Each structure stands twice: as C-alpha cells, then as structure tokens.
C-alpha cells in the first residue's frame, strides 16, 4: 500500500462530495423569481365580476368594474392567478373564500386574475365552487401573467404597502400562509401617503 498515492487520490473525492452536498441544500422544485423585493408590475384590467357575498361574509361587497394596481398603493394586495381548468385551484378555493371574507372592506385587497381562461368559463366555475368576496379580472393576451412571470396556476403574489412584491407563492395557498403573511404585511408602516400616493 502506497499511502502517499492513497491519500492524494482520496482527496479527489472532496470536490465531488462537496458538490453533491451543496446540491442537498437546494430545493430543485423551487422556481426562481426576480420579483420579490421589486415593485410589482402595474396593471389596469377589467373586472368580469365584483365578487359576491359568501357564507362567512354575508354582507355586501363593493361593486367594481376595473382594478388599477397603482390605485391600491398603500394597502396590502393579495394577487391570485387562477383558472377554471386548474385542479389545484379547486383545492385553494375554499381557503381563499374563507380568508378573504375576513378582510372585506379593510386595507387588505384580494384580487383574482384568470389565466388562459374565458370569463364565461370562469363565471360558471365560480357559480359551481361558490362565490369569492372580491373581484376577478380578465387578462386579455395574458399581459399581466407575462409581467408576473407566471409559471402555472395557481400562483399568489403578496404585495406590500410600498408596492413591492413581498412573496410569491407557487401552488395552492393555505390558511396559515395567508394569515401569517397578511398580518405581517399589515403590521408594516404605512408609507408617507402624500409621497407614495396616487400615481
């Protein structure tokens, strides 16, 4: 046994093992997005429904015929992309319905945007699944979806008061995720209204 050779060769294993070890710390399923921390892309889209009262929020919901993201600056916005053909969207639907009902009329605004879907199909789907207490927007030509770098549906963007994307969530949302994210964004200081105000 030539020990010098043996030790030298064994040292060759270090980079290989290091590389694999590094790999273990990564999540291969994570889809990188440059958006978190940056200003959310603006949009102004027509609403095909203003939403409707739900079991948890039987009171009225405000009528809306279009939504401009810029005019919501200063408030917390939860932007949910969904589609009537998407199965995972069925899973998160009751969650959105339940949680959003708690925030109707507050400084937390839920907004739905349909992705690769027809408004007629989406309305039929909402009829079947039960109403959401917030507006759903049409996105002709998927412009907003492209701006947000959508990978699939459902995806949910949490937008802070300063207009920056705080978090992007891929896949169905859960009660816990929504509650913790919304409350921490809500607790943040309202930026100086006159400066950051209307565009």
């Amino acid at each position, binding site marked *: *046994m*030539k*020990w010098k*050779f*043996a*030790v*030298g*060769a*064994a040292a*060759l*294993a270090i980079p*290989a*093992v290091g*590389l*694999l*070890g*590094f*790999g*273990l710390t*990564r999540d*291969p*399923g994570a889809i*990188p997005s440059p958006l978190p921390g940056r200003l959310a892309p603006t949009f102004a889209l027509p609403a095909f429904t203003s939403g409707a009262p739900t079991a948890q929020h039987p009171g009225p919901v405000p009528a809306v015929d279009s939504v401009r993201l810029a005019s919501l600056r200063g408030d917390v916005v939860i932007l949910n992309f969904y589609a009537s053909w998407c*199965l*995972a969207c*069925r*899973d998160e639907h009751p969650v959105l319905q339940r949680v959003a009902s708690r925030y109707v009329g507050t400084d937390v605004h839920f907004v739905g945007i349909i992705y690769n879907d027809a408004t007629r199909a989406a309305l039929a789907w909402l009829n079947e699944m039960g109403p959401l207490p917030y507006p759903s927007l049409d996105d002709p030509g998927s412009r907003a979806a492209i701006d947000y770098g959508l990978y699939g549906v459902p995806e949910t963007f949490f937008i802070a008061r300063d207009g920056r994307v705080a978090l992007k969530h891929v896949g169905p949302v859960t009660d816990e995720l929504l509650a913790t994210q919304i409350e921490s964004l809500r607790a943040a200081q309202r930026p100086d209204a006159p400066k950051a105000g209307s565009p």
Partner: protein
Amino acid sequence: MNGAIGISALRVALALSFVGAIALVAAARRNSAALRSAGFAVVYSSFGLVAIATLAMLTALISHDFSVSYVAQVGSRSTPLIFTIISLWAALEGSILFWAFLLFGFAALAARIHRKEPGHSLEYASAVLLGIGAFFLILLVGPANPFHVVSPVPLDGPGPNPLLQNHPLMAVHPPLLYLGYVGFSVPFAFAVGALVSGEAQDDRWVRGVRGWTIAAWIFLSAAIIAGMWWSYEVLGWGGYWAWDPVENASFMPWLTATAFMHSIMVQQRRGMLRVWNLNLIVATFVLTVLGTFLTRSGILSSVHAFTQGTIGYYFLGFIALVLVASLALVAGYAPELRRGGALDDVLSRETAFLVGNLLLSVMTFTVLLGTLFPLVAELVRGVRVSVGGPFFNQMTLPIIVVMLFLIGVGPALPWRRTDRAELKRRLLAPTGGLIVGLLLALLAGARDLYALLAFGFGAFALVSNVQEFWTGARDRMRAHGEHAASALGRLIAGNRHRYGGFLAHIGLIVSVLGIAASSTFKTEREITLAPGESVTVSGRVFRLERVWGRQDMGRTSIGADIALVSGGRVVAHLEPEQHFYESSDTPVPTPAVRSTAARDLYVNLMAFKEDGSSATIRVLVEPMVAWIWLGGGIVCLGALLALWPRRRRAAPALAATHPPRASHARRAARRVAVEVTS
C-alpha cells in the same frame, strides 16, 4: 405485531453485520478457519433476518395492517392485490428494505458459490458486502424506518402513487433495476477483496466476478428497457427516453459495466488493463450509489424522485466513504500491480476493445457532466440552468456511431495480429450492408447526418455480427456434414461466451435501429375531434366514435373510442383512457398503442368535454418502435447465453479455435487442457 417483528429483525441484523465484517477481516488476516466459518454464518443469518423483516412487511401490506407506518402510507383497501404487493417498492422506506433484502441475498449467494475457492478475497469481499448492507440497515432502523407504529390505527390508506399502479410494467422495472444496482456491489466487493488480499496480482478475481457482472448487467439492461417501455406506455408523450437525471443515473453504470465486461477479456487474454479494470468496476459501483443518491435525496428534479428528508445526508456520507475508500485503495495498491503485455498490432481485437472502452468512458463522463452541470452552474454562478436532450444528443450521437462501427469491426479482428487480406475479406459483406443501409435510409427520406450514419453503420455492424454465426455454421456443415439448425446450435453451444456476445451485439443494433427509425420518421398530430370526425396522420385515418366514462375499483376512467379506418372499413379500435385516482388530482394518461414490426400507432387522450361532445387526442405514427423492445430482449438473451455456466471453465483460447462437439471424449480432453493451462 408485524412491525415489532420487522424492526427487531433489522436491529439484530445490523448488530450482526458489524460483528460479521470484523470477524471476516480478522479471519483473513490471521488465516483462521474458525473465524471464517463464524463470519459466513453471520452472512447467512443476517440474510435470514432481513428476509424475515421483508416478509413481515409483505404480510402487513397484504393484510392491510395500517398500524405499520409504511402500510398506512402506501396501502389502501381498494388497491388490487398485485399492486399491493409491488407497493413494497412504491415509496422510499419500502424500497430500501427491498434493497437490503437483495443485497444480503447476494452476499449469502456469493459466500455460498465462492466458499471453496483458495485465497482470502472472499472474506474481504463478504466484509465489504456486510458493510454496505449495514449502511442500508442503519437507514432502516433510523431515518427510513418503515415499521413505525401508527396510533390510532387508520381504517384505510391512500394507496400507492397512481403512476405506479397504472401499469404492470411497474411490477418489473424497479426490481430489475435494484437487482442490477445491487448486483454490481458483488464485483466491487471482490475487486476490493482482491486488492486488499494481494490477489489482484493474478487475474483469477476477474474470472470470478465475470458471472456476477454479466448477471447484474442483464438485470440493469432489462430494467432500462422496461423503464423506457413503461414511460412509452404510460406517460403519454410517445417517447421513451428524455435524458432525465435518473435515467442517466441508470445509464452511466450500464456504460461502465459494458466497458468492464469487454476489457476484462483483454486482461484474461493478455494480462493488460489490470488497473483500468479495477477503476472501471469501482466507477460502476460508485455510479450505482450516485444513482441511488440522486433518486432518494431529491437533489435534482425528476419524475423519479422520492420525497426527501434527512436521508440525503446519510447517502452523502456513504458516497463520501465509498469514494474515499475506493480511490485510496486503487491508488494505493495499483503501483504494486504487475504491468501486462503491450499491443502487438494496431489492428487487433485488443485495439477495438481499448477504443471501445475509451468511447464508453467518454460517454459516461459526458452524461455525468450533463447530469450534474445544473448543480455546478448553481454553485459557481448562482443561476439555474437545465441541460436537456439537445446537449446529450449532440454529444453522444457521434460516439454511438463510432461504437456501431467498432461493433462491426470487432468480430472481424482476431487477437494480437490481423492478416490484412483476411480482414478485407471479412469486411466485404458488412460494407455491402453499410451501403444498403445508407441507401434504404435515404430512400425512406432520412436527411439528418446522424440518422443516416446510424442506419449505415447499424447495418454494417448487424451484417458483421450475423456473418459470424453464418460462417461458423457453414464451416461446421461442411466439416461435419451437419444440418443447418444443428450446426448453428452446436456452434453456439460450443462457445457460449463468444456467440452470446455476438447475439448481445445484434440485439443492441436492433434496438439502436429502432431508436433511430422511430425518432427520425415520427409523425405527430394533436387535434380536437367531435364524434364522427376523423383525422389523417401519415396516411392513416383515425375516427373518433365516442367518449365514455366508467367507475372502477378506486378510480374513474374516461376513454375515447377511436376507430382506425381503412378503405371505408373499421380495421381496429384504439381506446386511449385517462384514469382519475381518488388519491390524486392529476389524471394518469393511458395511451392506446397498436404495435407491429413496421410501426406503432399511438393515440393519447389529452382532454375531453364532460358531455362527450369532443375529445382532444394526440396521434403518433412511429416506425419500428417494437424493434427497441425486441432488441432489448435479444441483448439479455445473448448475455444470458454468455453467462450460462459450463461444468468446467475452459481456457477461452482453446474454445475459440476448436468449437468442441458435446461429446464426453472432447469434454474430458478439454478438462485436461484446462488443468494444464491454469
């Protein structure tokens, strides 16, 4: 009860493995017969214990004992019995249990088969196998314990992953793969044993591991083919290979093992390549461990990935240990090994094997690079990249074409020296094949360079290898006045190694031709049809008759009845389906395939209207797909032929030049010759 029996058996087996490994090493060092038999007793009894644990798990699965955590995870009362049994390997913990079962089974078998051979490599090899086994047992009593007690006991479970219960090939692919992967532990263990005991000096260990290597290689080849077939029959994309990291992980050890099977012939004949062969078998084993790591740790995204946990770090530690130990052993002992002979002639079979080895190694390295590059890129530049088909195709296609050429030339090259005129004569027919193959491909409309080369050199290699059978049988017919069939049979029986190898070549070429044809001449169309409407793909008319739905055990099936119409008559029905399992939202596609030697008609149901008013289907017409599976079968058959034991090992040189008749006198003469030469 099942849980308690299982986990106790595993714990005892773990303790025994350590004791046994130490006893076996001590037995070899002190040359102690008592320690040696104690060590082997441990090998057998740990196998017995792991078998008991596996049996306990099977019992728990079949009796729906949901108090066992693994059963609660993958079992379901509505799953058919066959899928309940194979769910032994449907998830991480069960697959590791099955793995350990096979490993200890092989260790026991190796001890049984080789126990009478002189020297000490078996003790070391068994100790190595017990060590590897101990690693899997550590996983099983620790992070991958399948026998946790679940309380309160659930009434029913979710059932195995829908993808795994949708096709019977899933009963075949994983166990074959495990048999292949685990099988390579044995030649690796013997290589380590030969090094440590100093018996790598002579070439006997190579002869001993030949059978193990070929056996593991057959399993791995069959597993790869079965995996391709499953992907083709179930996933609905009409393809069979995607250079997915885990596919690559099974392909890399296959490449190095293929190289090893060829280069050990050079060592046996010429005493060359001693160190190279050690490296190859170590690389093969390390690549199987890497493959397991990639599937079990969730390090790369892949359809094969199991859910991850801390288990990745255990595997990382194991890989580190294996890498460090084997690199050190080979590098430390290699300088002491005798150097073998040198090449006598550039044109010789040795050269063909050397170049082939080189190409296989380059190919392995390329695939490894492509598989791990995303990790490297993320580490160095922090960006996410994916390496896909185009890279692998561009890098490997040229190598594959040259390999085809070598497979064609190899049989025509004798050992040591080649008579140029004889070589020309033997390459005459294959060259004719090359021209015919090229012309046929051109006529069929192939214009892609690599496709043309693959058809040309595929035909070249095919003719060359078939010619070996033809000339051999013809000579026998002339010399002994035998019938064609009996001449061929005796020719093959007389030298199974040689003709088994050629048969495996033929199978491989048939597969490659199938792959080349199906990927070059594929026609594909995706269309939405209403009942009564039809689509024409590659001259064939497919008409949607109706869309139907059905409730089965634990699943809902939606199917489209598609008629294949020819001359106004319905000649066949294809019924692609989508299966919805209760445990999952995503439907499992079930394409309908009509397969003939000439072409496959492949229809997949992509989407449907719930009222049955339309269906979106993808129709593919792919030539010669069946050749791939057929070729895979021939490959395994050929290797099996080469593996089939003789009563006594003959000196290969003798058998090659004098194919003996199966008469007692000859056999006795050969036995004497063996005694003299060995």
